[in-house]
């Protein structure tokens, strides 16, 4: 019997590897230099959101699943990280791990419920679950309700590095971001990632080839939730607070916006999108009244005209992979 060549196994082309590597180097360079020109606290927050958006993009861009309730993982990781650092006195690395673990568990539970359905139903289940957890957060004592958890201590990383020092904190966040980003990159450019892309293109065909697609989708979902959790847990330490904003559905909408603006299905898109949206939020703060309208207009413009997003358009014009 002839052995059928697995059409999904192919060597990554040299070309897209190169452009992505160059892009990665540029990104790292910018982030290393940036704190000397821009306000570091803002950059740290932006990196957390960029990681969040990258985690979200893993699901929508590479598996084709729109999760409309991703704030669940981001927010609850943020809460647990803040609470463990403040009330239980965890050092920052343990606090972040606690938050991440929380997000992973939530992702596992939510994912196993939601994966059973596709498309719009999948999105609606994730939204419903996120709303339920929002109401839970609203009423639970430990989350501080409307006030949130405040005055979270930065602590000493591994007992040595004083995170109250801005530059030390910055280096830590930068490392976390790059590790998270690299991890996502590795997932995408791996046989596992190729199967995910196959599921996105044509799930029935993937099933007929013998892949247990539900299992792949669940793993991707949990990975995405976990990485969103890393972002949320880190953010809680950086800004030293966790609040209801982090679990509310506008936050889920914002991460969709960031990914859309940056470019769905591109590796750098979410990073750029996160920075763009955050800069907008702060630059517009003085004329705050139009924030909502402008966000809406960007959504509309992106869906109609710039469906590929910023990075997507650039990549398309230059015919490279970004």
């Amino acid at each position, binding site marked *: 019997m002839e052995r059928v060549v697995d059409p999904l196994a192919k060597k990554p082309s040299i070309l897209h590897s190169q452009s992505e590597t160059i892009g990665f180097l540029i990104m790292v360079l910018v982030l290393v230099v940036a704190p000397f020109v821009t306000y570091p606290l803002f950059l740290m927050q932006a990196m957390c959101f960029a990681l969040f958006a990258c985690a979200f993009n893993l699901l929508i861009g590479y598996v084709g699943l729109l999760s409309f309730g991703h704030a669940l993982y981001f927010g609850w990781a943020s809460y647990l990280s803040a609470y463990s650092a403040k009330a239980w006195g965890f050092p920052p690395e343990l606090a972040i791990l606690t938050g991440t673990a929380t997000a992973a568990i939530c992702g596992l539970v939510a994912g196993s419920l939601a994966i059973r359905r596709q498309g719009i139903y999948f999105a*609606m*289940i994730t*939204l419903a679950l996120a*709303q*339920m957890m929002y109401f839970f957060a609203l009423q639970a004592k430990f989350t501080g309700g409307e006030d949130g958890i405040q005055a979270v201590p930065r602590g000493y990383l591994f007992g040595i590095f004083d995170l109250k020092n801005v530059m030390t904190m910055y280096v830590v966040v930068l490392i976390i971001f790059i590790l998270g980003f690299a991890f996502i990159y590795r997932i995408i450019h791996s046989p596992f990632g190729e199967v995910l892309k196959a599921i996105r293109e044509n799930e029935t065909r993937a099933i007929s080839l013998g892949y247990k697609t539900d299992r792949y989708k669940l793993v991707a979902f949990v990975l995405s939730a976990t990485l969103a959790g890393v972002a949320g847990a880190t953010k809680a330490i950086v800004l030293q607070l966790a609040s209801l904003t982090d679990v509310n559905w506008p936050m889920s909408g914002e991460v969709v916006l960031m990914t859309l603006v940056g470019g769905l299905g591109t590796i750098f898109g979410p990073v750029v999108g996160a920075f763009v949206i955050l800069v907008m939020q702060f630059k517009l703060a003085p004329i705050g009244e139009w924030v909502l309208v402008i*966000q*809406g207009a960007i959504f*509309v413009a992106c869906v*109609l005209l710039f469906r590929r997003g910023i990075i997507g358009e650039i990549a398309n014009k230059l015919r490279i992979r970004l």
Partner: protein
Amino acid sequence: MFEIFGIPSTALFGQLLIGLINGSFYALLSLGLAVIFGMLNIINFSHGAQYMMGAFAAYLILQYSGLGYWPALIIAPILVGITGILVERFFLQWLYKLDHLYGLLLTFGLALIFEGVARNYFGSAGLPYTVPESLRGGQNLGFMFLPNYRAWVVAASLVVCFGTWFVIERTRLGAYLRAATENPTLVRAFGINVPRMITLTYGFGVALAAFAGVMAAPIYNVSPQMGAELIIVVFAVVVIGGMGSILGAIITGFGLGVVEGLTKVFFPEASNTVIFVIMAIVLLVRPAGLFGRRA
């Protein structure tokens, strides 16, 4: 008077009736959503904003022309329906060939725009609008005091809901609409202007939302965020009822109103999560919804 689980029966019946009244709002709103999704395959996330626009239109009509509630019931839906037609022509028609998640994102963006503009011009506290003279006061039914206005809401919703259902499921126009959704090319071959039907259907769905808005204006706070608060619950209703089914939306709307009402009596803190819990369960057990077509 007897007690059920510690609640006097008079209170229980009162709450059931109120649940039915609320259900009629849910039914009216989810009807518009169901029509749009069923006929057009578009998830209209701006439905809440259009509901809000209906209420605002009623307020503005009163401010600028002095016309009160009754004319507003007709004029406001028409005005907002026209904006719906414009939205369809300028924005939505480009998205039919794409995954219907793009329609969701686009209408979500539009909802933000509508809400933001309303907030900038009118502030967020809300605008005053009162119950019309002819419907003030109420009847003492013994087990509760029923405001006349609420009775009117139930009656009007039932009429509009079943009227719409009848038109879509039992008339020729409705048959054309349903056929056009399934096979537009064939229907066009029969000489029917399908794009225009789609545009008008969207406009009609939006007008339904606006109609609900006008009905809400006298009793709920007329504020820019009134739609955002409601839209997710209405989505849950539509998903439970079945996203293509008109009858499903109507019956589920009323049913969930009753369930919510009962929850408010026995376990009030959970009354805003109960609908989501039900939605999650239904989605797992019957993904197409209680009355829905194949997903």
